[in-house]
């Protein structure tokens, strides 16, 4: 069977090299073209879109999303999905403020948030690699657990007041004219890109995701890299959650939920670009821009959030349909 699909691939390549190349080229850059067209469209037809204020706003809005997306990219690269990511964002978003309000010093509270991410990620990874539950199902369940835990922690109420200024500065301040959040996003993207594209670790993660059997027979410690990838998803999520709380100036038990769908959307959109079918950091960054520009533009036009949800759902479907047509996208 594999031999058959293999010869199919090589045959179509040899038979129609030029149209084939054109098709991959179109595939690689069509999303980018759509993004630019969309941007241009909003810029031309929506008055307040092309202002410094609004563009800074978009940057700020996508920062946290990009950080979540980068984490998910590690997971997807290893062919693992994390459906608990939104509630992990939420967990950090209430745990850190809760500790700060209780008088814990800032560095300690931040470390506690990171530790929580590590624990959640390791639990997810343990369920997937040791117990053998597919990540799609394991993280659906842990997500539900986190959802409940978040509400138990806060009694369902938001945590207001008494947050130190240094903490709020992380989410609301500016540095060199740009929002702090944008710097965090830039840092995350650069570091993640470097790790995925320029280190042995990244090589192994992609190999494990690309063909687990081949990686195993090549002597790659697949359990280690699957664990690491899933753990990184949660660690990035708690970083995002902490920044989210700083930006909102409060701990909201349900503030993280939307990052599940939006985060997955960024990765799926990103998978249509650069190396089609593969989650890449730069692809995810473009995916986040895509989502950010759409959300912002539709907001300015005055469409309400329900319509935005519908639009996002359609975009995810289109992206996944495009990806699965050209490659073997199977996450289960």
């Amino acid at each position, binding site marked *: 069977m594999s031999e058959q699909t293999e*010869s199919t691939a090589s045959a179509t390549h040899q038979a129609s090299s030029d149209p084939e190349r054109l098709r991959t080229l179109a595939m690689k850059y069509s999303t980018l073209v759509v993004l630019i067209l969309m941007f241009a469209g909003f810029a031309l037809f929506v008055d307040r879109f092309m202002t410094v204020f609004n563009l800074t706003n978009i940057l700020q809005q996508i920062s946290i999303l990009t950080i979540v997306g980068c984490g998910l990219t590690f997971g997807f690269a290893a062919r693992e999905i994390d459906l608990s990511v939104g509630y992990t964002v939420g967990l950090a978003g209430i745990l850190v403020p809760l500790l700060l309000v209780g008088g814990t010093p800032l560095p300690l509270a931040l470390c506690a948030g990171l530790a929580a991410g590590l624990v959640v990620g390791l639990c997810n990874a343990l369920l997937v690699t040791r117990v053998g539950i597919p990540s799609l199902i394991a993280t659906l369940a842990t997500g539900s657990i986190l959802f409940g835990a978040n509400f138990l922690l806060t009694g369902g109420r938001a945590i207001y007041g008494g947050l130190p200024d240094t903490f709020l500065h992380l989410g609301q301040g500016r540095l060199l004219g740009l929002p702090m959040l944008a710097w965090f996003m830039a840092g995350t993207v650069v570091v993640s890109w470097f790790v995925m594209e320029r280190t*042995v*670790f990244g090589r192994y993660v*992609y190999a494990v995701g690309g063909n687990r059997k081949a990686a195993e*027979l090549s002597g790659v410690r697949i359990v280690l890299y699957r664990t690491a990838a899933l753990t990184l998803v949660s660690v990035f999520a708690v970083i995002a959650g902490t920044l989210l709380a700083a930006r909102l100036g409060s701990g909201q038990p349900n503030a993280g939920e939307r990052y599940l769908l939006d985060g997955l959307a960024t990765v799926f959109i990103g998978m249509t670009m650069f190396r089609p079918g593969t989650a890449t950091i730069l692809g995810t960054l473009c995916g986040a821009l895509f989502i950010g520009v759409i959300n912002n533009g539709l907001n300015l036009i005055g469409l309400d959030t329900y319509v935005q949800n519908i639009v996002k759902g359609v975009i995810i479907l289109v992206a996944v349909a495009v990806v699965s047509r050209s490659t073997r996208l199977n996450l289960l």
Partner: protein
Amino acid sequence: MHGSPETAAPVVPPAVVAAANGADVELRAITMDFPGHRALDAVSAGFRFDEVHGLIGENGAGKSTFVNVLGGSLVPSGGEVRVAGRAVTLRSPRDAWAHGIAHVSQEGSLVPGFTGAANVLLGDEPVLFGALLRPAALLERANVLLNHWFPEVDIPLDRPVETLSVADQKVLEIVRALRGDVRLLILDEPTATLQRREKAQLWQIIRSLPGRGVGVVLISHFLSEIKALSQRITVLRDGVQVGTVAADDVSETQLVDLMLRRDAGDGERATPIRTASRAFGTTVLEATDWRTGAVRVPHFALRRGEIVGLIGLTGAGHFEFARSLYTREGDTTGRIDIDGETIGAPGIRTLQRRGVAFVPDRRMENALFADGSVTANLAMVHPEFATRGLGVVLRRGQEKREVARIVDQLGIRISGHEQSVSHLSGGNKQKVSLGKWLYGAGERYRVLILIEPTEGVDIGAKQEIYAHVRRLAARGAGVLIVSSDLLEIEQLTDRVVPFVNGRDAAPIAHDEYSEANFIAAIAGEAP
């Protein structure tokens, strides 16, 4: 052969009987093209409703494709199917069924959790008002059907099928296939998963069918079974029909010969055959009391500089043995020594650290990741070779040079280092699969295990791969090759260990090499 005196009794190809004399169902000049390769080339066979017709050939010979055409699962690119003298088009298994042809596939098609009765009558349940199931009637009708066909067997049809024995499950699949007016039944490896004792019952059933007006097309890897059950046998090799023979006229050795013997002069003969009896070094790999699944090998040794080939029919255990040496998967037990040192906790990573490399078969499944680039695939085993900073950060320049070195050394034809491997030809893919163990490896690998090293590889690339394997051996590595290509074995190896029924047989030394000897050994004839 090749002008050398025959060292075994000459194998006389049996007379090919005229196929399709008074055939009830006839396949004429069936050709099946898949993109990039031809699975069947003008194969013809006639089947009758009063006989068991065996179909044999090695993996990839085209047996499954052939019966899939007969069973309506594949529409052929050329040729025609005739039922009772009339040309018909079978577009689906349903079409075939309407023409009295049913196909029982190898994998099993029962629904677990359903009872035997529900499975037997799946899609034809007795219902009330077109919707309500009638459990009692279901059981009764299933029992009637079972008794009608096979009164001698007793299977509790009210039990979930997964609680039944594998043999009973097979019987239920057959009964289900026989529903309606079926005259020709295709059985694909029906006994493959059965214990010896269970086979008897199924043999009985298969034998009884022609007497009741149902012809059988039987695929099996067990030649003794094929010979015992069939009246006629059609042999396929590489998608081409070798012939149809009367079962009584041939020996098992002759069948193996028909399955494996290559016609001389297909361009590959021209290369020089490996010179024998070079001096070999010390033993580099030694396996003792090896057991994996049903395979037992008391002792196996491989010396430095030596290329050893394992041969056998599918299921003889040579693949399983070689693979388990490296992976030690499942229930494998036994001692393994590398350079005289017993390996404490053998496993993929331990063996790899001790210098054992493994190039698996089915490369797209086991060796490469299709979406990855040539670089990412080549650097899968030793990415740390091209790094700085504690072996963590990749050095792109060094990586590029090492990839270029491997690409050059193996003659891999690519358009760029970042090209994805999925678009390479079979030969180039296989070279990448081998190159993984050369990239950044230096001289560290002293044992090389290769499974089907030139599966789906063109002749030119084959010779380049052979040349490289010889180079590795000359450098002092021990090489173990498992291949179903006897010509490859003959050209490349210094010694051959045949496998028969899960056991290693007496080795064949290089000066006894001949295709006839190989075939006799594979068929289990003592030398």
